[in-house]
């Protein structure tokens, strides 16, 4: 896990959430901007996951390894699911669905970091 990447992921996740809420407020569906932001978020999450897996293989083991891995892998699905699902929603609530996904990622990545940093304790 990289703390810098966690910060990047958090910012991107909040941007996705803000964009989603914006399109709901403007009574619009989600568009290209949302897709790009969700894509960047997903890319950052993949880099983070690869990094963490490399460190896990290298011998770093958080105390609750199984929970950590579950969070690490399931968080990868959230932006994809959120983006796909908001694309198929024709009402203005499409953006809110994506915003929920963004906020969930923000929470999950911090929970991940928390589990990871318990290593030395």
């Amino acid at each position, binding site marked *: 896990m990289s703390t810098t990447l966690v910060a990047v992921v958090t910012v991107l996740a909040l941007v996705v959430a803000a964009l989603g809420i914006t*399109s709901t407020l403007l009574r*619009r569906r989600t*568009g290209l901007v949302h897709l790009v932001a969700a894509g960047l978020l997903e890319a950052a999450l993949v880099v983070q996951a690869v990094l963490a897996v490399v460190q896990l293989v290298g011998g770093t083991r958080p105390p609750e390894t*199984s929970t950590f891995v579950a969070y690490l892998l399931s968080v990868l699905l959230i932006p994809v699911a959120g983006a796909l699902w908001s694309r198929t*929603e*024709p009402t*203005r609530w*499409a953006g809110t*669905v994506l915003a929920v996904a963004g906020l969930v990622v923000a929470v999950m990545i911090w929970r991940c970091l928390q589990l990871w940093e318990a290593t030395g304790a």
Partner: protein
Amino acid sequence: MPDRGDPGPGDGALGRPAEPTDAQDTSGGPGRVLVALYAVFALAAGARAAVQIALDFAEAPLAYVLSAVASVVYLVAAIGFARGGRAGRRAAVVACSVELVGVLTVGVLSLADPAAFPDATVWSGFGQGYGFIPLALPVLGLLWLRHRSATLDEGQGPAPG
């Protein structure tokens, strides 16, 4: 579905104008937000319960079983909202009611008798570990169901049979 013609200038980036929410069942519009939240909570509570029950069930059996029950309730609600129709709405009403009673009961008990809940559940302290979303969800769900049932029943006329 409406035509998917080219978006007008400036429409593409932030999305095309939305359709009104009216003609949908419980799965559309704000309902989709509820389905998303319920699905996330079903997964979160379920995964958590699975790990805890598998690794150290003896530590706090009541809390872990409760987490498992909560995840099933969330799943039923998510499916109920997503499927809609009379059966879906009825399932969602039952799930949301159980959930509301559960979060209130466990909330009170976890504060009154912390010893019974050595490890937190989604419903402990009225869901404070999860930003009180577990407390807000069933209320929002029931309000949405009431709203939807009212508008849908109006449009359907007398029920058959």
